[in-house]
Each structure stands twice: as C-alpha cells, then as structure tokens.
C-alpha cells in the first residue's frame, strides 16, 4: 500500500476515539452491515466519527489491507481494530462491547 494512503488512514484512526469506516453515513447508510454497526453505537449512545468509504476508493481498498480484514464496515476504538459487523453485533449481544468501551474510557449510556 502506498505510504500516503497508509498515512491518511492512520491519521483518521489516530484522531478519533471511535472511528467507523462504513458505506454511506450514519443518517444514510448504504449497506445493511454498516447500518447495523451504526445502530449498535447509537443504541449505546457512543460518540463516534465515520468515514464513507464509498467516497474514497483509496481508503475503501487500503483499509482492508491495513487491518487484514476483507470487508466494510470496520470499527476502531482508541486506534485498535475491534471488528466488523458480526463481531460488533456478537460483542453487543453478550455485553462485551459496552464493557470494552467502558474500559477504554469511552462514555456509554
């Protein structure tokens, strides 16, 4: 991956406590999986930033190589990759996600 793309991604991740790379926007998600993660974060009352990968092909492909994860959405908390839709949904259902966010000092409902 070209350095400037990697730097672009790193800056996005480093400058946000909770960063979601998604298809579309929270108010207009363009994919069911992205919408599901937005729903979980909204349900928990978490403040989060997003990147619409549909508007930046470099990021859309670069993020997959960056995290060695082939799909979107991708959630990062305090610069760490947490997972895609399945993992976020599973962690939310068993209460692991809010515990994790608490532990990382992220405000949750």
């Amino acid at each position, binding site marked *: 991956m070209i350095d400037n793309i990697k730097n672009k991604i790193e800056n996005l991740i480093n400058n946000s406590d909770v960063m979601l790379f998604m298809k579309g926007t929270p108010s207009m998600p363009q994919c069911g999986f992205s919408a599901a993660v937005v729903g979980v974060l909204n349900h928990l009352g978490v403040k989060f930033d997003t990147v619409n990968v549909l508007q930046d092909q470099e990021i859309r492909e670069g993020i997959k190589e960056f995290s*060695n994860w*082939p*799909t979107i959405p991708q959630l990062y908390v305090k610069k760490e*990759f947490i997972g895609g839709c*399945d*993992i976020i949904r599973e962690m939310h259902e068993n209460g692991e996600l809010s515990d994790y966010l608490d532990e990382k000092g992220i405000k949750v409902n």
Partner: protein
Amino acid sequence: MPMKAIEIEDLLLKVFPDAIIKIDDLRGDGDHYAAYIESKKFLGKTKVQQHQMVYNALEGRMGNELHALALNTSTPKNGD
C-alpha cells in the same frame, strides 16, 4: 461467479479438519451466507483473529466472489 455452500465448506474443512460447520444460504443467490464454525483451532484466539483465520481459509474470496458471509466462530464447549 457466486459460490456454492459445499465449496465454502470444502475450503473451511481443508484448514479446520476438526470443525463442526453449518452453512445457511441466506438469500439463495450464492452470495449471502451465514457460517457457524466450531473448532479447537480457535482456542486462545481473539474474535478478530478467529474471523481472519476463516477469511484466509477462503483464499481471498471474501469480499469478492463472496459478498456476505455472516460468521459465528466458537471453540468446543468442553475444550476436548
């Protein structure tokens, strides 16, 4: 070119020979599946690592031929 459930299972069994695998065809279009995989190989691995092991077993098809694969990975309950 979408995939058949049996193709997914074969690829997974190559990497997880001990696994109990169940694959649901969510839409009948060969592009949207759910897979339930139980294997000792997941022991000691984080969820992200478990799913990455599955994606690697699919040899790059995830996100290409295979648009959606809802994953549920687990380790044998009594750890035998």
